[in-house]
Structures are given as structure tokens and as C-alpha cells.
């Protein structure tokens, strides 16, 4: 039981990072843009959140709790939102190829983040590890204190996390309602399905694409923040394998069939499968190193399986937005 709970809790935290990335990407893809720059956005978000926290913690003697929370979040959101803006400028305004632009954004994001993180580490006089202690303490403060101490399995499994974990679920539900129930959501889906139709109906296609991509980028950036501040306990190291999570997020969008609600359980399942290699002993299985590497690919296998299933079922509602990956030119008839 103990082993299982450890596996479970690590999966929840890890899964939340994937969930933020996937939710951002769902919003972006609903506008018809396949942004392969998610890993870059996650990385930039992680770095910006870390940098904000580091600068604030070092600037004042007694950091204010509220500012400790809000500064990293704002930094992550703005930085990743700007990454989304860059992507949008290339693909919407300049009509550049979406895949190439996205991949470039991934490399740029990882590059800028690594460079900036390294710079901060040197500033702090460290060579391989720098930590934002105060910020991390607040973000990792588990909410079970509200109800009691974590002596039973229920509290450990469901209430022993920082607020950002629960916030992801809120974002998913809000996104679901937004897409399903609101007029703006309906318009956004129309933009992703058939921009020419949306345009003729008087919807500002360019604006919708920009806003969806930027907000999507900002949400993905929160994933990076969770990685550094919660998962890494506020520590920045020389190597931060956040891209892996970004790619898992892209896979999760397909796995969730573009539905935010599915992204909730999907992300936890992905993380659960991902951590199978480290927790196999719980099930009495011992894995050799090459076997463990292979097992880490389980989420991708699951995605392929889902792709096969949705291809076979041919249900229109489970297909990607019809104009996904295709730039919109109004003049083209």
C-alpha cells in the first residue's frame, strides 16, 4: 500500500504538469493551430517562474506570502504567453508552416530557458543547483492542513498537494464549459473547424487565433512552473528534462480527443504509466535498465492505441479540428 501511494502521489504531481501543457494545447488546437512549441512554452514558463521567484526572494528581506505566489505565476504566464504570441505572429500573420514554427519554438524556448537559468545560477554563485526556498515552501504547502494531518490513505492520496494541482482541474473544467456552453467558445470551435465559415459569419478569425494561442501558451507555461517549484521543490539544475513533459502533453491532446475533461484523468494515467518503471517493484516486477527505458514509452503506446481506436470508430466528434495545421488565407477561394 505504501509503495502504491508513493507511485500515486508522484503521478498526480507529474500528471498535473502534463495537464497544464495539454490544456493549453487543446485551446490552441481548437483555433486550428497545431503548436509543436508546447515543450518550449513549458520550459520558458518554468524558467520565468523560477527567475521571478529568485529575483523577488533576493530583493527583499521578508518576502510577502501573496507576492511569493503571484510573482512566479505572473512571470510564467507572461513569458509563455509571449512565446505563444511569437508562434502566432509567424503562423497567423506571416502564414509560416505551423510544424516548422512549432519545432523552432521548442528549441528556442529550451535554449532561452537553459541560458537564463544558467545565468541565474552563476549569479547565485552555484554551479549545478539553485533553489527558491520560500516560494517552493508556499507552493508545496499541502492543503490537508485544512482538514487535519495526513494519517489516512485518503488524505495522502487526494489532499496532500499544493494548490496548483487543484487549480489545474479547475482550469480543465472552466475550459470545458467555455468550449461547450459559451458563445465565444462556439465561435472559437468554428474558427478551428472552418475559418472561412467563421470569417463569413463575422467572427474576427485572426483575433481568435491570437488570443487562443497566447492564452494556451500561458496555461502551458504554468506546467513549467509546477515542474520547477513543486516537482523539483523550487530547484533549478543544469539539466531540466521539461521537454519530455511537453511532448507528453502534445500526445495527451490526441489521447483526450481534444476534450479538456478527458485531459484530467488522461494526464494522471500518463504519469502513472510513465512512473511504472520506477515503481514496478510495487507489483513485484523487477525491470532491467533497457526494459525501464522501454516502459517509459507506455504513454506514447497508449496514444497510438487511442489513435487506432478513434480511427476505427470514425466518430466525427472525436476527430481533430478540421482545419488543424492549415493556415487561413481569406483571399483563397
Amino acid at each position, binding site marked *: 500500500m505504501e509503495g502504491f501511494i508513493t507511485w500515486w502521489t508522484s503521478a498526480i504531481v507529474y500528471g498535473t504538469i502534463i495537464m497544464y501543457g495539454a490544456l493549453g494545447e487543446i485551446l490552441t488546437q481548437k483555433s486550428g493551430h497545431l503548436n509543436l512549441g508546447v515543450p518550449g512554452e513549458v520550459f520558458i514558463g518554468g524558467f520565468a517562474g523560477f527567475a521571478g521567484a529568485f529575483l523577488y526572494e533576493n530583493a527583499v528581506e521578508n518576502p510577502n506570502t501573496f507576492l511569493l505566489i503571484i510573482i512566479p505565476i505572473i512571470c510564467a504566464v507572461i513569458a509563455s504567453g509571449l512565446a505563444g504570441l511569437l508562434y502566432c505572429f509567424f503562423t497567423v500573420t506571416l502564414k509560416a508552416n505551423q510544424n516548422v514554427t512549432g519545432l523552432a519554438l521548442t528549441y528556442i524556448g529550451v535554449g532561452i530557458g537553459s541560458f537564463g537559468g544558467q545565468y541565474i545560477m552563476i549569479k547565485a554563485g552555484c554551479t549545478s543547483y539553485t533553489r527558491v526556498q520560500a516560494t517552493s515552501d508556499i507552493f508545496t504547502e499541502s492543503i490537508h492542513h485544512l482538514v487535519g494531518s495526513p494519517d489516512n490513505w485518503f488524505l495522502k492520496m487526494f489532499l496532500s498537494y499544493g494548490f496548483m494541482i487543484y487549480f489545474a482541474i479547475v482550469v480543465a473544467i472552466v475550459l470545458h464549459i467555455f468550449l461547450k456552453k459559451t*458563445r465565444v467558445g462556439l465561435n472559437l470551435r*468554428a474558427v478551428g473547424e472552418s475559418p472561412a465559415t467563421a470569417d463569413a459569419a463575422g467572427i474576427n478569425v485572426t483575433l481568435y487565433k491570437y488570443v487562443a494561442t497566447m492564452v494556451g501558451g500561458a496555461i502551458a507555461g504554468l506546467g513549467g512552473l509546477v515542474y520547477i517549484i513543486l516537482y523539483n521543490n523550487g530547484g533549478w539544475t543544469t539539466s531540466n528534462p521539461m521537454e519530455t513533459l511537453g511532448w507528453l502533453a502534445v500526445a495527451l491532446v490526441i489521447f483526450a480527443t481534444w476534450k479538456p475533461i478527458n485531459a484530467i484523468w488522461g494526464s494522471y494515467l500518463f504519469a502513472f504509466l510513465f512512473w511504472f518503471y520506477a515503481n514496478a517493484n510495487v507489483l513485484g516486477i523487477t525491470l532491467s535498465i533497457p526494459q525501464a527505458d522501454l516502459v517509459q514509452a507506455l504513454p506514447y503506446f497508449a496514444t497510438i492505441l487511442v489513435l487506432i481506436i478513434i480511427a476505427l470508430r470514425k466518430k466525427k466528434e472525436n476527430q481533430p479540428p478540421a482545419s488543424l495545421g492549415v493556415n487561413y488565407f481569406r483571399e483563397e477561394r
Partner: protein
Amino acid sequence: MDTAIHFENVTKTFGKVIANNQITMDVRKGEILALLGENGSGKTTLCNMLAGIYYPDNGKIYINGNVAAITSPQDSMKYHIGMVHQHYKLVELFTAAENIVLGLNPKEFKFDIKNAIKRIQEICDRYGFNIDPNKKVYNMTVSEKQNLEIVKVLYRGADILILDEPTAVLTPQEADVLFSVMRNMKADGKSIIIITHKLQEVLAVSDRVAILRKGEYIDTVETKDATTQSLTEMMVGEKVTLNIDRPEVVHNIPLLEIRDLTIKKDDGSIAIDKVNFYIRGGEILGVAGIAGCGQKELCEAIAGLRKIESGDINHVGESIIGKKPQEIIEEGIAMSFIPEDRLGMGLAPSLSITDNMMLKDYNVISPWYNPFVNRNAAREKAKQIINELDVKTPSTETPVRRLSGGNVQKVLVGREISAGPNVIVTAYPVRGLDINSSYAIYDILNEQKKNGVGIMFVGEDLDVLLALCDKIMVLCHGKVMGVVHATKTTKEQLGLMMTGTLDLNEEKPEKSFGIASDSLIQETIVDADEKKEVNE
């Protein structure tokens, strides 16, 4: 009568091309105005300026007497103008109601779909539309989608409706329903502009006809004073004979015989369902049917491009099932399919006419042991086709995409014919062509017919099929509804067969249409499975 729209010297150019030149004309309130002209005469461009898709370079548009500046589709909506485009602008995944309210009231956070459905129902009842607001668009038929488009613009309060080629995809019966709806709207005081190049419809439904030719405004005439002949002359600008020749040719043996053919579509559904028919040398077999009823799959199967499920395709008594496309071409079967975008199949748009000649004959022009391309032979052939078919092109090296539609199609048909086939399968060869080019293509086909070639002509215009073909086969959802002699049938009968209302197989069960009395197929029909066993 009051004027709803007044164009004053409206000019629109695209680069060097003048789409509309100094157009001055009126649309009255409460009338149906037909805007007539050949492809490329500027009808759609003119209306797109009302819809806010284009903005005039010069000139003014008055709506109800006031100068209007229509710079976007929203502006157009403000002036109560609604346009139904030729290619429907609908979100397939949404319901009818969701499509209708799309883009409206952006300030309203949660949308009130129930109220919208009520209003949609009111509009439907008032004018006689038949749509279910909760039906998803991808489940709708083409005519339902069209109704939805019209309801959409009415819901937005349109008083001036523009319908761009509305009947192109409808059966004669569906078109009649549309016309009665249009008359209802007219009685309600709405102005309707119908863009078309079909003369019969113009005469059937409009009050006045405005004619455009090559971007110039020619005249507006009262429909009651017009005839097909007078309208065509204004449209083309010269005297034309509207009769399509149907030379009498002594019929030959059945060249192509199709038995119990079943083909699947790409998505696995049945495209062609147990079809029997044959084509004799020296006859043109027309194939009629609503778009997407298996025509494309049938053509592809005959050309060896698509796997068949069961049945047999026989060419001069010999099965061509399992043969490679190249072998089928060598046997003398030529296939040309003109898809909707007109360049997608058969020709490579960016290659020159010469290079396109080689696409089919590369192994004849340069034998396999010669690693180099023999461009001279291909160029000679290109020149020959350009001369014989009067293709208008600067040179043989001009990329095909730079030619006009008619010339592209002449190149394609010319290449297919130059191989000296004995069976020609051609689908929509006059799609999008002006009258003179269309007649040139009919002449080419008739010439081949006289030479004893068997021709299968897949078409969309029933008037053309009735005039050109010897026999007409009607497809409905992949089934043959019957094969009729073109001289002994009517447009209405074909229309009923296209929708599956009339099935001649049921009327005359004793007669099997598709099997020739002098069939060259020796053995009795056997299933594909049994045949396999026989072969083994």
C-alpha cells in the same frame, strides 16, 4: 418599383485581370433578378462586393438609395444583404442551429439556443423550408445544407439574398422546391439575385435577367421577352447554335462490359453496388447521378486505380481485373476525370504541356533502356494537339496551370485521345467551361464516336446528357436505377431516378438492363471467390 441596389460604374481588378469593368445596373425591390454570364464573366465577383468579401476599386454601390461602403461581411449584414456561396460555408460538426447563430451577439456570454431554435422554426414554416435545427450538418444532404444556408441569412435579417449557382448540385425536383421557396420570399418583399449560367432556370424563375460578358455589363431584359437563343447570344456575344450533334453511328460490339461490379469508397462504405452495364463501340453512354454517387469510384475502377470488391470488368471479352493501370492503357482504355478543382487529376499543373504529354507515354516515347527523356517527341505531340484542338497557349513549354480552364481540359482530353483508345471514360469534361469550349469538347467526343470508340460520359447537366448521349445510365447511391435511351426519356424521369424515387429495375424486373444480348463474355457470371477456385 423601388430600387434596392444600384451599382454605379463599379470596377474591380485582380492584378491585370479586369473582373468587373464600369458596371452600372439596378436590382429592384421584390424581384428575382437572374445574373447571367459564362464562367469568368464576373458574376460572382460583382456579388462578392455586396457580400463584403471584395471592395470595389472604383465606383459606388447604393443600397436603398444611400451610398454604402461594404468592407466586411458584417457590414453586408448591416445592410441586410445575405449571400449563399457556391461552396457552402458551414461547420460540419455543428448542428443547424449552432451554424445559424454562429458569430451573432458576441456580448451574450451563454447562448440561448432554445430561443434561436424557435425563431428558426418560424422562418422555416413561413417560407417552406424543411430543416431540423438539431441535425448535425455532416448528416445533411446537399439540398438540406443549401436550405440551411438560406435560413442562416434570413435569420440574420437579410432583405436582399444572393444565391450563387444554387441549382448546380440539385436534382430537377429539388430545384423546383427551391424555386417555390424563392417565390415565397419574393412575395414577402425580398429581393433575390440568382447567379447562374443555366438558361432554362433563368426563364423558369426570374423576373428580369442581367447579362454580363467578360466583366462588362451587357443589358438587363425582362424575362418574359427573352428566349434561350436571345440570352445565349447576349451572353456569348455572337450567334451560336445551341444544338448538340448526335451523329448516328452503326453500333459495334460491346467493348466494355461490366458485370455485378461492387466497389468501396475510401471510408469503406459501398460506392458502386452490383452494377451491370456495357458500352458499345460508336456510342456514348451518359452517366447521370447526384454528385458523390459512385461516379468517381467507377471511373477509377475501370482505369485500374481502385481495387474492386467483386464482379468483373471485361474489355472485348477479356477481364481486366487485376491488370495494372499501364496495361489497361495499353489495351486502349483512356480515362479522364475532371474533379471540382479541375486540375487535381490527370495533369500536373506546374509542368509544361510537353511534360504533361510524357506523363502517360513516357515508356513509349523513351523506351526503358534509354535513361534519358525524349522531349522532342513529346513536344511534337504537344504541338499536334495544340493545332488539332485549337488550344490557346503561348508555347508548348507553358505550365498547364497558366492556361485557362477550357484549354487545360482540351490538353487533357487531347492527350487521352492521342493514344488512340477504343474506350474513353470521361467525367465532367466540360466542367466550368464556356459555351464555345464545351461545344469544342462535344465535337471531339462525337468525332471519336464516329471512329467507333465507345465513350462513357459522366456528366452533371441533364440537358447536355439528353442531347449528346445515346443512352443514359442513372446512378443513385451506387445502384443503377436504369439505362434509358436519351431520345425516349425526359429530364423529369431522370430526376426521379437520380433521387431513387423511380427504379426501372422494379418496374420491369424481367428486363436486365446491363447485359448485352450479344455479350462477349462466354461463361456465366460467377462470383469472384468461385473464379479464384477455377483459376487454381
